[in-house]
C-alpha cells in the first residue's frame, strides 16, 4: 500500500518540476504565451486547463481497455473537446468578464498538446489512480508556469499584480511586456533561469558523487 502511495506521489511531483510541461517539455506554449498578459488571466487559464486535463485523464484511463487502438486519438480528442465545451459554457455563465478576456483561447484548450500528450503517453496505459496523480501534477505544474509568466508580465508591463498597483505612481510601465513580444521574452528568460538552476543542481550532485 505504501509503495502505491509513493508511486502516486512521484507521478504527482514530477509534473511540478522535473518534467514541468512548460519549462522542460515545452508543451502547451500557445496558451502559455497568449493569455499570460495578466496574472488573473494566467490563473484562470491554468485552472480551466487543470479541469480539462484531470477529467479527461480520468475518463481515458477508465476506458483504456474499451477504446480500440486504431481510433484512440480521435476518441481522446472527442473526450477532451467535450470537457472543453463544458468549461467554455461554465466560464461564460459564471465569470463572463474572464471568459471575454480569454476569448477563443478557452476553446483552443482542445488543441493544447499537453493534454493530448498526457492521454497518449500516460492515461491510456495506467490505472485511474496513477492517471489522476499524473494529471494533477502536470496541470499544477502548468498552472504554476503560467502564473510565473503572468506575474512577471503584469508587474513589469502594467506595474500591478492581480490588478493592484505595486510600484506606485512614479513607475513607467514596460508596455512591451504585455504586448506579444513580451510573452516570448518572459518565457525565454524564465527558461534560461530554469536551465540555470537545473544545471547548478546537477553540478552539485556531481561534486557530491566525486567526494
Amino acid at each position: 500500500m505504501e509503495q502505491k502511495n509513493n508511486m502516486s506521489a512521484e507521478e504527482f511531483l514530477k509534473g511540478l518540476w522535473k518534467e514541468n510541461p512548460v519549462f522542460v517539455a515545452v508543451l502547451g506554449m500557445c496558451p502559455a504565451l497568449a493569455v499570460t498578459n495578466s496574472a488573473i488571466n494566467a490563473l484562470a487559464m491554468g485552472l480551466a486547463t487543470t479541469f480539462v486535463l484531470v477529467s479527461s485523464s480520468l475518463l481515458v484511463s477508465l476506458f483504456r481497455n474499451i477504446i480500440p487502438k486504431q481510433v484512440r486519438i480521435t476518441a481522446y480528442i472527442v473526450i477532451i473537446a467535450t470537457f472543453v465545451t463544458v468549461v467554455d459554457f461554465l466560464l461564460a455563465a459564471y465569470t463572463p468578464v474572464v471568459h471575454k478576456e480569454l476569448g477563443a483561447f478557452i476553446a483552443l484548450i482542445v488543441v493544447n498538446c499537453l493534454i493530448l500528450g498526457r492521454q497518449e503517453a500516460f492515461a491510456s496505459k495506467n490505472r485511474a489512480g496513477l492517471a489522476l496523480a499524473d494529471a494533477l501534477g502536470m496541470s499544477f505544474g502548468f498552472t504554476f508556469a503560467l502564473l510565473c509568466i503572468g506575474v512577471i508580465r503584469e508587474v513589469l508591463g502594467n506595474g500591478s499584480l492581480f490588478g493592484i498597483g505595486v510600484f506606485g505612481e512614479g513607475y513607467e510601465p514596460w508596455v512591451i511586456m504585455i504586448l506579444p513580444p513580451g510573452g516570448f521574452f518572459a518565457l525565454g528568460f524564465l527558461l534560461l533561469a530554469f536551465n540555470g538552476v537545473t544545471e547548478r543542481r546537477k553540478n552539485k550532485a556531481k561534486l557530491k558523487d566525486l567526494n
Partner: protein
Amino acid sequence: MENLIWIFVSALLVNNFTLSYFLGLCPFLGVTSRLETAFRLGLANIFVMVITAICSYALNTWVLPYAPYLRLITFIIVIASSVQFVEMAVKKLSPELFKALGIFLPLITTNCAILGLALFATNKGYGFVEGIVYALGAGGGVTLALALLASIREETRLMDIPDLVKGTALNLIIAGIISMAFMGFAGLFSAT
C-alpha cells in the same frame, strides 16, 4: 476587393498567427532548424488551412445553426480528417518530405493555428471567399514566421553561444525580436 486585400494583409502581417496570437508554436519551435523543412511545413499548413476554411464554412452554414454546442467537436473532427488526407497524399507523392516532417504532420491536427483559424473566421462572420482569403493570409503568415525563424537559426549554428542559452530559450528570444519587428506593421492600415 479592398476588403479582401485588407483581410489578407491583416492575417499575413498585422495579426500574424504565430507572432501576435501565439498560435502554432509547437512546430514553430520544433521544426525550424532547417529552412527547407520549415518552408514545406508552412506549405502543408496553408493547404490544411484552406481545407479547414472550406469545411468550417460548410459546417457553419448547414450544421451548426441546429446544434451550436457541437461546434468544437465537429470542427476538430473535420480538421482531423482533412489532415489525415494531406498525410496520405504527402506519403504517396513525396516519401522524402514525409520523412523530413516526421511527427509534426499528424500534429497539425493538434495545431492551434488550424482550429484557431476556424474559430476566428467564425467569430468574424466571414463568408466563403473571405474565409479562403483569410486562410491564405494566415497560412502565408505562419510560413513567413517559420521561414524567418529557421533562417536565423541556421545562422546561429555557426555562432559561439553559451550552452545554457542554446535551444528553446534562444529560439524564444529570437522569436520575441521578430515579433517586435512585426509590431511595426500595426500602423499599416489604421493610419489611412
